[in-house]
């Protein structure tokens, strides 16, 4: 046996060995860092290093566009600040306040100034007329938000998911063929409503002071927002204590602490307002209350404590600005902590214009097992047909071994790069077995045509002829699949990628090796 003549077989053997190693060796396939950051499922405890996608492991996937619209090439006078523009535009839209409008001034010649409206349910005409009324000319308004805003959303969502303790979650941006942008969130083992809550709530947390003032027509209530995300220098974990109930301990930034305690003193919270919130008993006439407001909904109303009031009056508070936000239950406290830590989303996702997918893990387990069996049965069918056709195990057995080794190499590759396998990939594997065996049949028929193969030269020339057909067929398959591999949007992409890879592995590695094996068996050299 000659090394140089058999290098193709040796190459195949090396590939199979590496693939098997990637498949079963513990700790391979980036299970240390990739599994925690990027990959979908940390499939710990499984017998292989394969990563499984949602269809085979269960979980939730939400794919939705960002709720908002953007005006491009807006003409703004040079001296106006973004804040001014935001306020003027928001003033013309009843559903929005200044924080729902984002202005990005052009920084360089190739950029344009954009104005984004980050609330849903406002028509583009409405937004356009608001811009007109504010006196800003624009080129066009499109649904969706700018790349910068979308990147922020993706970053914050990643943060929120990791803080919610939902391990293995993944957030990505995808663009459809017609240029629409979607945010895709995939989370194993989470159910749909958990995920939906997390992504549809913008999570804007405010502390609002509500207090009575004597006006001309008797007592009126004023509400003044005092603190928001970004005013805290330290956010501790949510906890539950007997005295204070569920709460999140916080420390204020120095400036925020000074403003806050000044406001408290000025509004009377540290005087007559101490311990005088009656919100729960009498929401119409609550007295002096500090409201915790999430997405404009009051989740808790607290009184100013007498101890805290004293430190504010004396000015000690600014030196030691400890603060707590109370909630009614622990899960609210945890959610509050996530919102405080991750920050608020610039805009929510519009679930009505996307897709959602939930699969129970138990059903996914069944799918995994059943699709494995289905694949094996398909291989068995191929094997039987090939044996019946050739009646010669010398031809048929290596054919099967080669076709299977293609699948092993692909699985090894999938394990090594932690490609999350879904049903569409399984279909791709079966397609690969199909085309693989087809090509091996071409080789076998061509080589064995017209009598015995008795010399190496005859073999080589026949093998080359066969390879022209295989190469041509492989090229067409790759061309046919490539649009799908590139035109993203998930489901068919996996199938296309596996098929293309399979064809490449087949043409470059396994089929030449099969030729070598067959030659040894046929020429008896």
């Amino acid at each position, binding site marked *: 046996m000659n090394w140089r003549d058999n290098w193709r077989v040796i190459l195949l053997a090396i590939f199979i060995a590496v693939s098997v190693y990637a498949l079963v060796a513990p700790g391979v396939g980036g299970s240390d860092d990739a599994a925690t950051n990027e990959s979908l499922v940390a499939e710990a405890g499984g017998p292989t290093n394969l990563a499984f996608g949602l269809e085979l492991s269960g979980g939730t996937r939400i794919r939705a566009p960002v709720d908002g619209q953007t005006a491009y090439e807006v003409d703004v006078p040079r001296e106006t600040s973004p804040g001014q523009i935001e306020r003027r535009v928001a003033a013309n839209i009843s559903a929005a306040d200044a924080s729902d409008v984002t202005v990005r001034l052009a920084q360089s010649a190739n950029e344009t100034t954009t104005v984004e409206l980050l609330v849903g349910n406002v028509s583009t005409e409405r937004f356009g007329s608001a811009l007109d009324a504010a006196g800003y000319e624009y080129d066009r308004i499109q649904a969706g938000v700018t790349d910068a805003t979308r990147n922020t959303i993706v970053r914050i969502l990643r943060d929120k998911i990791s803080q919610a303790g939902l391990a293995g979650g993944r957030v990505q941006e995808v663009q459809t063929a017609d240029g*629409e942008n979607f945010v895709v969130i995939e989370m194993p083992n989470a159910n749909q409503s958990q995920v939906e809550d997390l992504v549809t709530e913008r999570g804007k947390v405010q502390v609002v002071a509500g207090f009575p003032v004597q006006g001309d027509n008797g007592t009126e209530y004023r509400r003044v927002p005092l603190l928001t995300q970004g005013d805290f220098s330290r956010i501790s974990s949510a906890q539950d204590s007997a005295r204070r109930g569920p709460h999140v301990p916080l420390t204020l930034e120095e400036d925020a602490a000074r403003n806050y305690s000044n406001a408290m003193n000025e509004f009377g919270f540290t005087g007559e307002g101490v311990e005088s919130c009656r919100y729960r008993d009498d929401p119409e006439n609550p007295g002096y209350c500090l409201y915790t407001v999430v997405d404009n909904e009051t989740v808790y109303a607290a009184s100013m404590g007498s101890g805290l009031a004293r430190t504010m009056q004396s000015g000690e508070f600014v030196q030691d600005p400890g603060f707590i936000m109370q909630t009614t239950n622990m899960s609210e406290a945890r959610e509050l902590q996530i919102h405080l830590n991750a920050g608020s989303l610039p805009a929510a996702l519009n679930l009505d214009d996307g897709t959602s997918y939930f699969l129970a893990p138990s059903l996914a387990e069944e799918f995994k097992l059943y699709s494995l069996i289905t694949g094996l049965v398909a291989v068995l069918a191929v094997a039987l047909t090939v044996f019946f056709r050739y009646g010669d195990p010398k031809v048929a057995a290596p054919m099967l071994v080669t076709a299977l080794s293609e699948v092993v190499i692909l699985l090894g590759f999938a394990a090594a790069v932690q490609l999350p396998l879904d049903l569409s990939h399984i*279909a791709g594997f079966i397609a690969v077995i199909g085309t693989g065996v087809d090509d091996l049949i071409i080789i076998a028929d061509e080589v064995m045509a017209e009598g015995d193969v008795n010399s190496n030269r005859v073999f080589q020339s026949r093998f080359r002829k066969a390879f022209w057909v295989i190469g041509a067929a492989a090229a067409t398959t790759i061309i046919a699949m490539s649009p799908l591999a590139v035109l993203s949007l998930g489901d068919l992409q996996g199938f*296309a990628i596996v098929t293309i890879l399979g064809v490449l592995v087949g043409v470059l590695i396994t089929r030449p090796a099969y030729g070598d094996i067959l030659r040894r068996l046929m020429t008896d050299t």
Partner: protein
Amino acid sequence: MVAFEVPEVDYTRYTNRQLAAIPLALLAVALLVLAGWYVTTGAPVQLGTEFTGGTELRVQTATPSSELPDQFDADVVSVSPVRSEANTYIVTFPPEAENIAEQARSNLEPTQACAQNPDCDPVKSVQGTSASFGSSTQQLALYGLGLAFAGMSVLVFLMFRTFVPSIAVVLSAFSDIVIPLALMNLLGIELSLGTVAALLMLIGYSVDSDILLNNHIIRRSGGFYESTYRAMRTGVTMTLTSLSAMAVMALVAYLFGIDLLASIGLVLVLGLATDLMNTYMLNLSLLRWWKFEGVAR
């Protein structure tokens, strides 16, 4: 070991017209079916929820299937039982339906086994697609198929550089897609992303055997019928192998209730059978005409 041999067909007994008539007639019927479908339903094929928008719920419940639609606020498009599991149904809703999973969890009667297990969730899977997303997916799938087909055609023309053999491959690949599409309508298989994948796979499989036939006839020495027979022996084996694998896969996946794999398998079985006919009747007759008459002109 029992070996089967691909039988040798005596093509000299049939004229080109006779050979091409059957595949072309079937193609025409298939196009008629698609056109008729388009006229009556507004789409040439039955689109699944991935393309039209809507929600598909898979649920295990003791509530009988006839009472299922009453348990939801939204209209129910269809309820179909899952064969592999008792008391399991797939319920389909139109795109505007909301909060399907919550309604299912609160309104449906859990099965006995489920009621005893606090972790049990009667909702096995929910798949929701909005109408706008569905239509953009539809477009994407159409682009994908179109581009794949165009790319394949260009490549085939580049490889053979002669009109008739190339168009023969393209025509038979076209027919390999259209006839299964029409059959899907007749058999009630919806077009989903999975079946689109199957149709794309068909392009690959179908071109395989066509290229093989062309290659043997154009580029090899030997008589036309001899080359044909050699190509057929290999090509039919190839197609039969794939056909048997896909038939078995369709059957097993059907029994297990994995609809995606079952429909991929079934579409491929239909397509591969169509391919046998197209390659060795349509493609062959075009090649024979080209070899014996077309070139002489």
